[in-house]
């Protein structure tokens, strides 16, 4: 029977490690890396095993405390959540190498607090993707939020202000979500998602269900920074300590998008969600606007990290739009993009971390000639940039492919155009940087010899995960077919 608890160990391993880090880290700082990485390796191994089990035996339903489902809290690990579990632990593991290094530099003496919050955040994310209970989801959402408030506020300068903004926006989001859950509860009398899905079709309360859905969605949109509710995100992620940004930026928004998919697929039926064509196309329009605006705002930034945060905002538009296209291709693209975007963002934020570790800033002007100082880092950056632009065979291309295909199929040309335009803007954005880093300082139109600026790569701990991620971008791209056949196509409901 113990093997059926495997997914619980995935969640518990970072959680327990967090407590140990908190206690032990006060006395011996050297134990922290081992604990962090060890627990995440365990979690990753467990997650892989869970995914394998799910592929073999189908979705796993589990009730905490051994109560029959609507009474106890049910956890559901299906193909989608198994995949997310692997994604989260993998990204967290890769990011933690870099975080260990940058926290050592930026927050000396506070490592144990940092990594306590960090590990709990990961545990919370793991819990989020497994849960099948609407209220449990709220609690876990708050765990991830509170830990990220803390992590972000640990930064310097404007970080507390950004964190406070995030607290206010995040609380509004969580409260809205809770209101939605409350409405669902009063209508159906249950909190279990599968149970709600069972009851809803027989329920004659169109107004209240629509209101509940609206609040659930708006709440999650705030949390995922869907334009125009994105205000908190750029500041929060660009002022956070580097180590926090590296992990939070790839995962937080993506997991929230996952939650949206989960609610749409497991709590409501697709017929409910896509019932009103006006609302559906309205959201796709909003997503198109989000994509364009996010990209344009990214254009105005003078700092690499800030630019990336605005790109995240645009990418959220991709996913929300893809989901609300209401066809299989759009949904496939959106789910695929969750994975791809997490990896791409991770790659780029790792680059940012490496550069910050070496030269303390990622202002665009400071990137001049970086190809000579940090060639490997910039090579990885180039691959990440290609993925963002959507150059095959990097993974970014394939999700974009499905999204555009979905747009074409649904006849939402504005979404297609937005995707293409944003790809183009991304191309300009990233090539501006690549050019800057490739050419270095041009004084009087002449190129300066870069013999003076010697190679100065970041250390092993920062570089190796970066390389791994860059390779992953291509591997995942080439493995798109496998991913879709074995995982994503099984998630999409029939008749879709």
């Amino acid at each position, binding site marked *: 029977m113990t093997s059926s608890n495997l997914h619980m160990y995935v969640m518990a391993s970072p959680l327990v490690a967090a407590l140990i880090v908190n206690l032990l880290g006060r006395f011996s700082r050297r134990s922290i890396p081992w604990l962090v990485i060890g627990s995440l390796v365990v979690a990753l191994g467990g997650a892989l095993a869970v995914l394998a089990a799910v592929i073999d035996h189908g979705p796993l339903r589990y009730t905490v405390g051994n109560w029959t489902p609507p009474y106890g809290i049910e956890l559901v690990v299906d193909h989608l959540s198994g995949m997310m579990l692997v994604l989260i632990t993998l990204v967290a593991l890769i990011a933690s190498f870099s975080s260990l290094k940058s926290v050592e530099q930026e927050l000396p003496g506070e490592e144990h607090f940092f990594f306590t919050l960090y590990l709990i955040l990961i545990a919370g994310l793991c819990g989020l993707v497994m849960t099948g209970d609407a*209220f449990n989801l*709220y*609690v876990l959402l*708050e765990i991830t*939020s*509170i830990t990220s*408030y*803390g992590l972000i*506020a640990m930064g310097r*300068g*404007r970080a*507390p*202000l950004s*964190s*406070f903004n995030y*607290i*206010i926006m995040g*609380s*509004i989001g*969580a*409260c809205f979500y*809770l*209101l939605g859950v*409350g409405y669902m*509860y*009063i209508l159906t009398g249950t*909190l279990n998602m599968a149970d709600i899905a069972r009851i809803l079709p027989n329920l004659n309360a169109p107004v209240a269900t629509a209101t509940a859905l609206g609040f659930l969605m708006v709440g999650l949109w705030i949390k995922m920074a869907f334009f125009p509710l994105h205000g908190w995100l750029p500041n929060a992620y660009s002022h956070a300590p580097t180590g926090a940004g590296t992990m939070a930026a790839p995962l937080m928004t993506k997991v929230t998008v996952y939650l949206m998919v989960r609610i749409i697929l497991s709590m409501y039926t697709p017929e409910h969600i896509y019932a009103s064509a006006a609302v559906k196309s309205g959201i796709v329009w909003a997503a198109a606007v989000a994509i364009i605006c996010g990209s344009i705002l990214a254009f105005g930034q003078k700092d690499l990290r800030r630019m990336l945060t605005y790109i995240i905002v645009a990418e959220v538009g991709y996913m929300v739009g893809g989901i609300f296209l209401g066809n299989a291709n759009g949904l496939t693209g959106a789910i695929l993009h969750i994975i791809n975007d997490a990896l791409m963002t991770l790659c780029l934020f790792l680059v940012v971390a490496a550069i910050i570790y070496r030269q303390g800033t990622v202002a665009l002007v400071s990137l001049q000639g970086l190809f000579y100082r940090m060639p490997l880092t910039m090579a990885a950056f180039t691959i990440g940039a290609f993925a963002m632009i959507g150059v095959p065979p990097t993974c970014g291309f394939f999700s974009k492919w499905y999204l555009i295909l979905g747009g074409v199929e649904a006849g939402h040309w504005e979404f297609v155009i937005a995707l293409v335009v944003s790809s183009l803007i991304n191309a300009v954005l990233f090539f501006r940087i690549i050019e800057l880093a490739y050419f270095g300082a041009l004084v009087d139109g002449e190129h300066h010899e870069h013999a003076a600026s010697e190679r100065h790569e970041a250390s092993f701990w920062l570089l190796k995960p970066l390389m791994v991620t860059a390779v992953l971008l291509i591997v995942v791209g080439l493995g798109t077919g496998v991913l879709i056949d074995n995982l994503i196509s099984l998630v999409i409901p029939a008749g879709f």
Partner: protein
Amino acid sequence: MEQIVQEIVAKYNYWVYVILMMIGFYAMIGKRNLVKKLLGMNIFQTAIILFFVSTGVKKGGRIPIVDKYSGLAGTIDPNTIDNPLPHVLMLTAIVVGVSVTGVALAVLQRIYREYGTLEENEILEKVRR
């Protein structure tokens, strides 16, 4: 008219909760003082708690602590006991609320240290400079 009045009377708790929620929500997005925003957040949360607790109320219901022996015998009429589930949920929500408040207050102190004020517009002015 009669119907509307009846509607209001039947659901006056919801009205109050909506009003409280609006007060809190307005404070969160409309007030410039950061502490006020935070107080607004707390009011918002209590409003939601009020809403949830209201859902668990049964007319003529008693508090959800039962007599152990009649419980064991299984002779309790569920209609006479208030629904305990919303209470449980709201206990959690209160804890979450106070946790967020604590973190926010700590962050506020850092902000005050940095900018010497808690007014949003004054802070933004200082940031821009």
